[in-house]
């Protein structure tokens, strides 16, 4: 994974967050992706979200698989631990990381190729386990790194750069995550940072698996007229149904939205997500209805965005496992090893 070292220039006037850090402290190496690649905008949104959440960078573990998208963890949070896994298998790394240390912020970045083909199994099981992490899919409908083949998220009828038409139905990670019992399912667009930043923040604070599918046009292989994942298409056919405002625990809620249009969900750390319905006929609390709506809009060629479904309180991996509160990697050896006497006693069974 390539990146170019970025000169770190901190202007005296730069805003500092609650930890006294500037946004520079949340940046990584310089991107080597194509100029204009949607992935870079997502990187910027991630940087801003972590900065605004006052998360100490070294408490973050960032993971990815293989692909252009999977390179991006090198471009944000330079001071956090990274794991660039093999193709499609980031979710299992995240599962192990989460099992060993439940106190870290886990963020995984993947591509539609990485997550929906080679990694479909691991992706599905991460959702199913309600792993406590934010999982970002940078969805461009193509394999960028291997130069332009269709990915499993390419729409029927969309064309590759050289004219070949896709005939297979797409796999929509959003519908999949909903069907699999995902507890936080959102979709954004790399070109809309205003929508993206609160979604990232809410996803990070959600206890459980937060899927954020971000349409992220590939300017090199899939930003032409016949693509349904281009900038132009996404701008034209995007329909934000729910706008999410993220309110940190320390901030009072001064929202003035009309009753019935705003749903306030409290997260485990006391922060809140305000779901403001943009489309009146959308219900982010009803899994079945939400899937139906997303499907219907997809058939009409539209892309539904926002925080599409959210449920708090379902047990995550540790809840199901009943793991102790102390991270497993911090338990002293004495609490793990039963000792000599126990071994002697146990062996009476073997005589």
């Amino acid at each position, binding site marked *: 994974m390539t990146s170019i070292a970025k000169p770190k220039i901190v202007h005296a006037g730069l805003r500092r967050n609650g930890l006294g850090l500037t946004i520079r402290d949340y940046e990584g190496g310089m991107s080597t992706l194509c100029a204009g690649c949607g992935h870079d905008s997502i990187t910027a949104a991630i940087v801003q979200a972590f900065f605004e959440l006052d998360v100490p960078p070294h408490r973050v573990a960032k993971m990815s698989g293989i692909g252009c998208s999977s390179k991006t963890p090198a471009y944000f949070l330079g001071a956090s*631990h990274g794991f*660039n896994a*093999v193709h499609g298998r980031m979710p299992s790394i995240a599962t192990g990381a989460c099992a*060993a240390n439940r106190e870290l912020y886990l963020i995984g970045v993947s591509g539609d190729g990485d997550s929906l083909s080679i990694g479909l199994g691991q992706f599905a099981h991460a959702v199913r386990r309600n792993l406590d992490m934010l999982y970002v899919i940078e969805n461009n409908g193509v394999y960028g790194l291997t130069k332009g083949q269709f990915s499993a998220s390419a729409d029927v009828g969309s064309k590759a750069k050289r004219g070949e038409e896709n005939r297979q139905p797409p796999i929509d990670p959003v519908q999949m995550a909903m069907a699999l019992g995902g507890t936080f399912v959102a979709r954004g667009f790399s070109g809309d940072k205003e929508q993206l930043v609160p979604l990232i923040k809410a996803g990070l604070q959600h206890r459980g698996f937060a899927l954020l599918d971000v349409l992220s046009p590939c300017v090199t292989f899939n930003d032409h007229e016949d693509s349904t994942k281009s900038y132009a298409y996404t701008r034209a056919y995007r329909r934000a149904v729910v706008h999410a405002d993220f309110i940190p625990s320390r901030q009072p809620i001064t929202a003035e939205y009309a009753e019935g249009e705003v749903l306030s969900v409290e997260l485990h750390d006391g922060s809140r997500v305000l779901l403001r319905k943009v489309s009146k006929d959308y219900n982010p609390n009803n899994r079945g209805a939400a899937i139906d709506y997303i499907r219907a809009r997809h058939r009409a060629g539209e892309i539904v965005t926002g925080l599409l479904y959210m449920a708090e309180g379902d047990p995550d991996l*540790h809840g199901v496992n009943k793991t102790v509160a102390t991270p*497993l990697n911090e338990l002293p050896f004495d609490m793990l090893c*039963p000792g*000599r006497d126990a071994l002697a006693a*146990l062996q009476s069974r073997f005589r």
Partner: protein
Amino acid sequence: MPQEDRVNDFVIKLANVNGTGSASANSLLMKAIFRMGVPVSGKNFFPSNIQGLPTWYEIRVSEAGHLARSGRVDVMVAMNAQTYVQDLHDVSPGGTLIYDSTWPRDKLLSRPDIQILGVPLARMCNERFKSARTRILMKNMAYVGALVALLDLDRSVVEQLVQETFAKKASAVGANLEAIELGYRYARETFDCPLPTRVEPRNATAGKIMIDGNTATALGCVYAGATVGAWYPITPSTSVMDAFKSFCERFRTDPQTGERRYCVIQAEDELAAIGIVLGATWNGARAFTPTSGPGLSLMSEFLGFAYFAELPAVVVDVQRVGPSTGMPTRTQQADILSAAYASHGDTKHVLLFPAHPRECFELAVAAFDLADRLQTPVILLSDLDLGMNDWMCDELEWDPAYRPDRGKVLDAAELEAAQAFHRYLDVDGDGIPYRTLPGVHPKGAYFVRGSGHNRYGTYTEDAREYQEVVDRLRRKWGTAAELVPQPVIRTHPKTDGWGIVAAGSSDPAVLEAVDRLADKGIYVDYCRIRAFPFGRQVERFLETHERVFVVEQNRDAQLKALLTLETDCPKERLEAVLHYGGLPVDAGLVVEAVERAREQGVAA
């Protein structure tokens, strides 16, 4: 035919139908002999099926302590009509066959050179017990009763075992004791008891236990402090995780709150299982995954990753018969090469070869220490015979002073004091770099990656920088050769300059063969390999023996191939002695191979 006197030296084979509940009767029988102070070993030959197919259990009684298969059958209990002809054929001349005489056998299906005893097991149990299931189960206990009389087993020991076995089902105790009594009484009243083939109490099992390798391995994982276990079920490794979970339930679960100091994850497949292990070890937990050949194949990609990115991982490969799905319930040692070189590129892995359950326990602990110390995967190569059969071995011991060797991990204070941290520098000259854990200190951050990186951990495609890293990995391999368990070498004072090399569960067969050869005036030395890289002592054994027999349980002489590739020993010096039909190896194979070579005059 006159019966040979075979006190404390014979084999009982029990032919049953899978799913009829014979396992507890058979293991009770074996344990009774063990408790009478006479060494025993039990081998279960079962089909890859839940119900209906033939299954055999073989108990070797050996005062001399030989634990391999002997190749004989002195007492056959033929409970399976389907295999009766084969079972009859398998009895050694002068032996005894016991069958259920409720349905009389055709006279033709008999043999003049053995003694055939009929016990009306089904009839007795049908008369005595009501429910169909109990009748089937109790038939097994009734033949145990008959054997108590015929083999002169200590009844009080057997009864005590029944009490213990069914401690949680008090109602079962009575029925089982009654069934035993039925068989016992019938045998006493009908036959000349005991047989010349019988058990006499001794004191040769003090300080020993009977345990299967998978349970011992699981205990090793618990004692080593493993907190994360991930797996995808596969025979014959499944019971490693079953046992790990039950020990953790017992030792690592808060009785008040139910909170667990461990996390076991049933993965969606083996690709994920090893990924979970790596994610956990990256974060400083001790983690492991048990699997078998097909699972190891799937894990290869991540094993290569872990080798190059230098992450600890413990994989327990309980080998079964390959290729492909092979024979899932038969044993082999055929994953040696695929484990040693799992994954593409210049990759190699540390292997450990336990030979008995006690070593499963000890080497499992060692595996975690080595994985942490060397920052690399360590594969414990067990097998079905070792893993799933009950073996007699020395009691497990634990040194309370033991502390895990977590290797070179920098903590917050060390990072605070450090100028800077660079992941892949060879600071100490042993090829092992320092690592850091996520979340500990801002200075510790770095990228774990399977792509080309230089000694600072940054991405590179520069030839020199890349080579520097892989050359250091070779240096680390040299360090590994010094750290891994050394071989167990037995030299004979009258050695002929010939040697045997073996690993893992072939050990008892080789030990017995060495003794039997010595009885015939052939003196061979024996080197039991316990690890790969092989290390200096193995090299020296090969250098100092003009002819070396490599005994192993696969078709392609994989251990021999590895010795040829990874030592300077000339290929001609090594001779493969192979056993690969899926049943555990016996001493006869080794004795014959050495004798044949001797007759051919190949000796110097």
